[in-house]
């Protein structure tokens, strides 16, 4: 693998609140550039495939796709380790993949199969990967942020030199529990990084209709913040690195990622009643995070158009194979209905008069 250092300039400057912004020159390597391209293309393909599976009714319920926002997941992972924790909301497929989750687990979970990352019990909104510190996948807007700050508390408690990225949307940014958790994190100097993925809409509501002050990086008031071009994986990487250092040394910080979702909010939203098609295609043409990396790959002569096309074909096959494999996976056993309600296996059944049989002896 070619790790020749390359320096890349972010196309936009950072805007900082109560801190000095990091440099716009980001260190990278040919390998990283190619990796970025490949992983983002894989993410995009995965989401498009999920869309098709949804339309074919193999995925049901709520399904929130991440296409358009890939640079955030990619840039963040490039700056941190798997000891650093991530927690996010329901738009979690690509974060899971970024943490090392497999396509097989993704599609199995989406189709409610045993082999899903949550055994089919969680669904699209509930991906987790404990061994690489991915704490989910949460369905209630904003409620994952206190959890994330609690994880950061545990990191401090255990003297791990690690941080937690607690991700939320522009809509979620108006939830009171964020302000509560931020205040506590600041009081306790926790290594908590609040990442606002500002895709400019919370369902059908434009940011300015939900927030009097849509400058999310400043919404921490007394907590420092940084506004980042969330369509530029390198800007994200730089910001996350900066934030990690900051958090370990000085406590919480907010990162506002200026990004965009191409799909509607979830599969039931066409996504075009509250924004214009022009707006969407404008972003696609001018700010697409994959195109940006592609251009860099080409301009640095790291691959040819043809090689990238081949790579995309390979990815498509990889995704298709994963889907086929997932389709072959069995549905959960009926007994799974009752496991994991309680740790010891009691629970529902324990309400029967035969309860003593499942009586749990405490350690």
């Amino acid at each position, binding site marked *: 693998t070619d790790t020749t250092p390359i320096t890349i300039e972010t196309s936009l400057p950072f805007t900082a609140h109560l801190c000095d912004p990091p440099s716009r020159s980001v260190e990278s390597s040919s390998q990283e550039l190619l990796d970025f391209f490949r992983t983002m293309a894989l993410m995009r393909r995965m989401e498009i495939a999920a869309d098709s599976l949804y339309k074919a009714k193999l995925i049901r*319920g709520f399904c929130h796709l991440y296409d358009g926002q890939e640079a955030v997941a990619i840039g963040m992972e490039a700056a941190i380790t798997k000891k650093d924790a991530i927690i996010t909301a329901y738009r979690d497929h690509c974060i899971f993949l970024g943490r090392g989750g497999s396509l097989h687990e993704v599609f199995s979970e989406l189709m*409610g199969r045993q082999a899903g990352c949550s055994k089919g*019990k969680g669904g699209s909104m509930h991906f987790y990967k404990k061994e690489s510190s991915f704490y989910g996948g949460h*369905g*209630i807007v904003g409620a994952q942020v206190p959890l994330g700050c609690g994880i950061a508390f545990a990191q401090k408690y255990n003297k791990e030199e690690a941080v937690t990225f607690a991700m939320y949307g522009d809509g*979620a940014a108006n939830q009171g529990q964020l302000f509560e958790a931020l205040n506590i994190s600041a009081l306790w100097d926790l290594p908590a990084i609040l990442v606002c993925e500002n895709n400019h809409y*919370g369902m059908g*509501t434009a940011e300015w209709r939900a927030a009097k002050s849509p400058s999310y990086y400043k919404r921490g008031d007394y907590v420092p913040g940084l506004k980042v071009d969330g369509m530029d994986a390198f800007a994200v990487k730089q910001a996350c690195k900066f934030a990690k250092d900051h958090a370990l040394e000085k406590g919480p910080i907010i990162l506002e990622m200026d990004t965009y979702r191409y799909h509607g909010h979830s599969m039931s939203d066409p996504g075009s009643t509250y924004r214009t098609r022009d707006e969407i295609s404008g972003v696609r043409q001018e700010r697409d995070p994959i195109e940006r990396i592609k251009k860099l790959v080409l301009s640095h002569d790291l691959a040819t158009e043809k090689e990238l096309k081949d790579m995309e074909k390979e990815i498509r096959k990889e995704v298709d194979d994963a889907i086929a494999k997932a389709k072959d996976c069995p549905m959960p056993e*009926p007994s799974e209905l009752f496991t994991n*309600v309680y740790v010891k296996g009691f629970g529902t059944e324990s309400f029967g008069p035969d309860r003593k049989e499942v009586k749990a002896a405490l350690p």
Partner: protein
Amino acid sequence: HELLLFEALQEGLEEEMDRDANVCVMGEDVGHYGGSYKVTKGLADKFGDLRVLDTPICENAFTGMGIGAAMTGLRPVIEGMNMGFLLLAFNQISNNCGMLHYTSGGQFTIPVVIRGPGGVGRQLGAEHSQRLESYFQSIPGIQMVACSTPYNAKGLMKAAIRSENPVILFEHVLLYNLKEKIPDEEYICNLEEAEMVRPGEHITILTYSRMRYHVMQAAKTLVNKGYDPEVIDIRSLKPFDLHTIGNSVKKTHRVLIVEECMRTGGIGASLTAAINENFHDYLDAPVVCLSSQDVPTPYAGTLEEWTVVQPAQIVTAVEQLCQ
């Protein structure tokens, strides 16, 4: 005229907004977007954005604001985009909505309506499949109703808005597209009255919301098998219409409860206790209650199906009860 359940709710809401300038609507995406389940469609255009208010995603605060506005005499209809989200507003609902009339010695009334979709849908996952009636039922001072047909949806919506008490109106995610012909004339439903769905002699089946349809499906089979079940949609989840229920028990001497909420602390438990207390002497067999399993609703389709009561289980339960 014929309409879908969500349209019936919308019609009821619109009529009440026409009738009383104090009625306003607030919630997430209820305005421009017309509501996630289209219950407020067209209202923002007609009544303007002072009466149809899009809120940020702040369930606790906007519920509290609705309650505060109600203290002054407004009649806000507060939509929980999904009822489950209102857990964030639990404190406002219990302590303020439910208790302010009392703690103020009657000075203030809280004529709000809190409404929205709940219940197990089609693989919506744990948080979006909740049946909040179990959590809310002990709150003193609130009334709770659940609609199940376009007819009663409209009638209950209108009655809830006119009530001086805070009313929680439960809708069901899977029932919004039910179609029915409803009267052209204005009507309201009584907030404390159960609905006789099918009179019968052999057994009383008490149910509400979506489970009404599982029961009616089972009833078909049962009739074919020679049973004559009486099906009652209890509709009023708090307080119970023990008059209607009691008369039925006196007639059939057997009770089966079919509910979608969870077994522990559910509506069925309260109903069992109430029947036991009031009509025990009329019972020929213990009340049987079929509830959803006490588990967070799983995503997988098969698991989800096993979570809620299915018609076949109802048939079996009736057969056993009527032995």
